[in-house]
Every structure is written in structure tokens, then in C-alpha cells.
């Protein structure tokens, strides 16, 4: 059953991604509206699928890379839908959808692995930790997308090549604002995620901080975003520099996301569940 739901979600999200790409080329509002609602439907199905997994596993469905990616994509789409309600920026979907689609395709391409959940995973702190972390990722992804759009538009204006994207992309001010607000909302969530993670570690592992590679890497990301936010608010970084910094932060974030499961060997990594279950 859940397999069917996830297939439907995948199909709808890919369909809407196609629609968003057609929209950016043809600039037809009805294409946008269709894509938006298909995306919304896809989000509902993805929610159903993840909810099913949640209750089935009894824990947040991030127990392996396959599920984590599905959850991450869900966060990106969810954050986008919220932002879109406020921003009403039609072209944004054309950039967000491909990123979400990429993660969902990756997720579906990974062969299923046994999803055994140790008892320590069934904990409220962990739920808060995972949710705030992932929604934070989702918001930072939007900051990244805003930054990419900013750099494209900035390049058009600087080089005076008033091409296709000039008309289709919003103003630099708007794009910089996406970056600004993504940080304002994303950073506190990420911080909450860090703190609840530490609390959970104390509860489950007996110490707040273990210098696990994932923890160190997360700290680096946290510091990077903290620097960016500080520079923005206090020094007045904006525009191009803030956009590049956002992109850099996001690349580190992605490295963490994939690296943790592929290379690192700590309790966070998805490959080391057996060890995880052996933890006290």
C-alpha cells in the first residue's frame, strides 16, 4: 500500500516539475496553476506515505538514506508551499520543483533496505530534533535556490544581457529577501535541532556531545550559517556575497547529508544501524 502511495507521489511531483519547466518557458499562468496544484497533490501523497511509515516504524522515517531523502524532499516542497502562499512568486516553483524531484528520484532509486528501528529511536526529543533539522534543511534549500536565482538575475543585469531570464526572474531585492527570510526562519529551527539533538544524546547515549563526525560537521554548518546571518544583519552583507555564502553553506549541508550515510562512521550514519542498536 505505502509503495503505491509513494509511487503516486513520485509521479505527481515529476509531473508538476515538468509543468513548472513548461511554465518558465511558455509563461502561461494556467500551466503554473495546474503545476502548483499537482505539486500540492503530490505533497499530500508524500505526506500520507511518510505518515504511514512513521506509524509503521513508530519513529520518524529517517532511518535510512532512502527514507531520509523522501523526507527531505517533502520538507522542501512543504516549505515551498508555505513560502509561495506568502510570496506569490510563480517562477520560484520552476527552481524548487527540480531540486525536490531530484531528491525524490534519488530516494526511489535506492534499493530498499531493512528498516529496523531500535527502541531508543522512539523518543520525543528525537522527533523534535529530526523535524526541526529537516525543516531547517528545507528552508536552507530555499535560501540556496533564492541565491542561485539571484546570481542568474544579477549576472543578466551586470552583463546587460537582457535575456529570457531577465523578464522571468523577479527583482534582485525580492531574491535577496528570500535569502534573508530563509535565514531568519531557518537558523532558529536548525539551532533548535542542534539543541534537541544534544538533549536526546544525553538521554540516549549519556553525553550531550560526543565529537561524532556528524556532530562536528553540523556544528560547522551551524557556524557557517551563523556567520552569514551575522554578516547580513550586523555588517550589511547582501546581494552577491550573501548569495555565494548561502550556496557554500548549502554545499556543506549536502555534503553532511550524503556524507553522513556514505562515508562517515558514527552513530548518525544510516549504514551503522546495527551499531546504533547496540548503544546503551
Amino acid at each position, binding site marked *: 500500500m505505502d509503495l503505491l502511495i509513494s509511487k503516486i507521489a513520485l509521479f505527481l511531483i515529476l509531473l508538476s516539475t515538468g509543468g513548472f519547466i513548461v511554465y518558465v518557458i511558455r509563461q502561461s499562468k494556467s500551466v503554473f496553476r495546474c503545476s502548483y496544484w499537482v505539486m500540492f497533490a503530490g505533497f499530500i501523497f508524500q505526506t500520507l506515505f511518510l505518515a504511514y511509515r512513521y506509524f509503521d516504524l513508530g519513529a520518524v522515517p529517517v532511518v535510512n538514506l532512502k527514507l531520509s531523502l523522501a523526507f527531505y524532499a517533502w520538507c522542501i516542497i512543504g516549505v515551498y508551499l508555505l513560502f509561495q502562499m506568502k510570496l506569490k512568486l510563480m517562477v520560484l516553483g520552476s527552481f524548487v520543483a527540480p531540486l525536490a524531484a531530484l531528491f525524490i528520484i534519488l530516494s526511489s532509486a535506492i534499493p530498499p533496505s531493512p528498516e529496523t528501528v531500535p527502541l531508543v529511536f522512539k523518543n520525543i526529543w528525537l522527533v523534535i530534533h529530526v523535524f526541526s533539522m529537516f525543516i531547517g534543511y528545507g528552508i536552507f534549500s530555499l535560501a540556496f535556490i533564492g541565491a542561485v536565482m539571484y546570481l542568474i538575475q544579477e549576472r543578466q543585469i*551586470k552583463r*546587460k544581457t*537582457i535575456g529570457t531570464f*531577465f523578464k522571468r526572474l523577479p527583482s534582485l*531585492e525580492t531574491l535577496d529577501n528570500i535569502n534573508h527570510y530563509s535565514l531568519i526562519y531557518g537558523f532558529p529551527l536548525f539551532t533548535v535541532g542542534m539543541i534537541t539533538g544534544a538533549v536526546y544524546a544525553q538521554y540516549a547515549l549519556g553525553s550531550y556531545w560526543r565529537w561524532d563526525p556528524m556532530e562536528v560537521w553540523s556544528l560547522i554548518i551551524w557556524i557557517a550559517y551563523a556567520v552569514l546571518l551575522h554578516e547580513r544583519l550586523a555588517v550589511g552583507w547582501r546581494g552577491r556575497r550573501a548569495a555565494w555564502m548561502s550556496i557554500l553553506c548549502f554545499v556543506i549541508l549536502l555534503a553532511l547529508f550524503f556524507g553522513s550515510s556514505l562515508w562517515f562512521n558514527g552513530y548518525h550514519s544510516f549504514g551503522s544501524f546495527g551499531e546504533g542498536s547496540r548503544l546503551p
Partner: protein
Amino acid sequence: MISIVNIGMNHESAPVELRECLAGENMGPADILAKMRDAAPLKESLFISTCNRIEALCTTDDPEAAEGIIIKLMSESSGVSEEEIKSHMYSFYDMEAVKHVFRVASSLDSMVVGEPQILGQVKDAYRLAALQEKTAGVILNRLMHKTFHVAKRVRSETGISETAVSISYAAVELAKKIFHTLDERSAMLVGAGEMAELAAKHLLKHGVKDLIVANRSFERAVGLAESIGGKAVLIDEMESQLVSADIVISSTAATSYVITADMIKKTARKRKNRALFLIDIAVPRDIEPKVNNLENVFLYDIDDLREVVNENSSQRMQEAVAAERIVEEEVLKFENWLRTLDVVPAIVLLKEKIEDIRKAEIKKSLPALGNLTQEQINIIETLTTSMTEKIINDPILMLKTVAGRSSKDRFLDITKKLFNLDQDKE
């Protein structure tokens, strides 16, 4: 037969760097006009120099020599080699020249088709030629009056000027792509030319809140600031005003950079890196091009804006077709008038001869009539004048009618023989 020669360069034929050189530091239009007046093959002359074009117009019997002299003059005044100038110039003769002048003044040849400034600039150039340097004669006077008439017709009969995508409009569009909305933004004009004024009005219409006018002549700054609702500052305050400005439009006649990259760099921190949009509509340029490389600073010069505008102007081509038709129509009319010029000397001679006869006869007869009142003398004057005029009216009309035809010379010949005009002259 006399020829009309027009040599010039515009935004299409020459790059901005070359136009900058020719916009002239060494010699103003008045000096060039004075030299044109002194050059023998040129009879009447006119010189138009704007930030987008240079046009030299003259009448001559020897078009080739005239062209050579004009190019030599331009080369001398700018320091650019004659070859370089030649390769970026266009030249038109007679009706083609007339047509070009009509098109220029009607703003059909403008970088931004329909922009209103050019007509004023052509009028200024004519004023200089007609009143100050006295280089305009029968043909140019007529041509320029017709030119203004054509420009007026194009403006009122086509939508070109209303729908004109002006440079200011393009600038506003760009500003919106940078600032999203212009509400609450502040703008600064550096230099208070016509073009800057137009741009400022556009900005204010789109929500710009504060407008600052910095100008070398403070009086002019105050005048402009008052007329459009802004604040005037001294040119020396310009640098400190950069901190609060979001949009700067520069259009001074300065020959070196008014705003440099260092100047902008210094303000960046105080500005908290807020975006700055600089528009340089001056030639020579006012703002150092390097400024565009600075972070969150965007510089557009007049040629860049042209690129932007090109895109929007295609749909307005319809109106341009109607305007071109008006121009063609008026060129034909002018051509007809110009042809009558060939018969004008004969007509003048004829009129003079008849008038001489009339005066001589009155002089002879008056003493024989005894004491007449002034009123009676007046009646005799009127009577004789209308008689002579009516007698020669038909021959004159005939001459004017044949003026454009090949039989013209035969008619002129007959007229001269019938009235014995040539002999009289001697």
C-alpha cells in the same frame, strides 16, 4: 544646380567612444559653424551636435569638395583621423539629405525612436546658424522651417511620441528589476539637462520619494529641483549624497569622470552595501565604467540602455511606418519648392523690370497732373501696381508650373527673350 549635402554619424554608424571624441572639447558647434561659413565651397551651413549624433548640413555647388572640407574640419576639431571619421560616417545628397534631416528632427532616427529631446536640439542648432553665426540662407531657412513642421506633424499624427519607449522608461524598468518597487527610494540627478529632467519625472511617477539635484550651476539645480519637486545641492555635496541615494542619473557636460569607482567604494560601507543603480546618459561619460564591477552596484550607460530599449521598440514599428509616410510626403513637397528656385531669378528680374517701368512712368506723369492730394496719389499707386501685377501674374504662374519639368529651360529662355531680361541686366 545647387546641392544639399548632409554628413553625419549617429548611434548606429559610430561607437560611443568616437562620438564622445567628436562631441568636442576643443571646438564647440559655434566654432565649427564659423569655419564652415568661411570655407568657400559651402554656401549655407548648419551643424547639429548632440550626445548621440553629429550632423553637418550645407548647400554647395561642389558636393565632393564640401564633403572633404567638413570631414577635415571634424578631424581637426576632434583629433580623430579623417579615415576613422569617414569609415563611421554616412553622407546624403539632395532629397536624401532632406529626408534624413526630417527623420532626425522627427525622432525617427533616434536611439530611442520618438524621444522628444532631439527636436529641441535641432532647433538650438538652427538658432545658432540663423541668428548667431548667420550661416543659414534661403534654402536652409526653408528646409529647417519645413523640418519643424514635419516633426510637429509626426508628433501629432502618429503615436510615436506618446508610446515612445524612452530611455527613462527603460531605466525605470531596470530599476524595478533591482529594487522591486521604487516606492520610498531616493534618486539623485547629477547635472540638470533636459534628459535628466525627463528621467527624473519618470522616477517620481513610479514612486521615488526623494529627489536630489546636484549641478555645477547651483542656480540651475535650484530651478530644476523646484520645477519637479526635489532638493538642490551643490556639486561638491554630491559625493556625500551618494550614501543615501539608490538611483543616480548623471548627465553633466564634464569631460572627465564625475563619479569614480573609488568614490563609490568609499561609500559602500556607509550604505550597508545597499544596491546602487547608476545611469550615465552623458557623452563623454560621467561615471567610470569600472564601477559596474563593484558589488551590488549596477551601471548602465546610454548605449547599454539602447540595447535594452531595442527589444521593446519592435511593436511600435507600426507607428513608425505612418511617420515615414509623412516624411516622404513632405520630402516631395520640399523637392517641388526647391525646383521653383531655378525659375526664381527670372521671376525676380521680371518683377523688378515691371516695377521699374511703373515707377518711371509715374514719375513722368505726376507733374502733368497738377496738384494732387496724397489720397489721390495713393490711388494712382494702387491702380498701377495692381495692373502690372495682374499682367505678369500669369507668366509667373506658368514659370512656377514648369519649374519641375524638363521644358523649364525653354520657358525660361522665351521669358527672358520676350521681356528682354538679359539685356536689362547688363
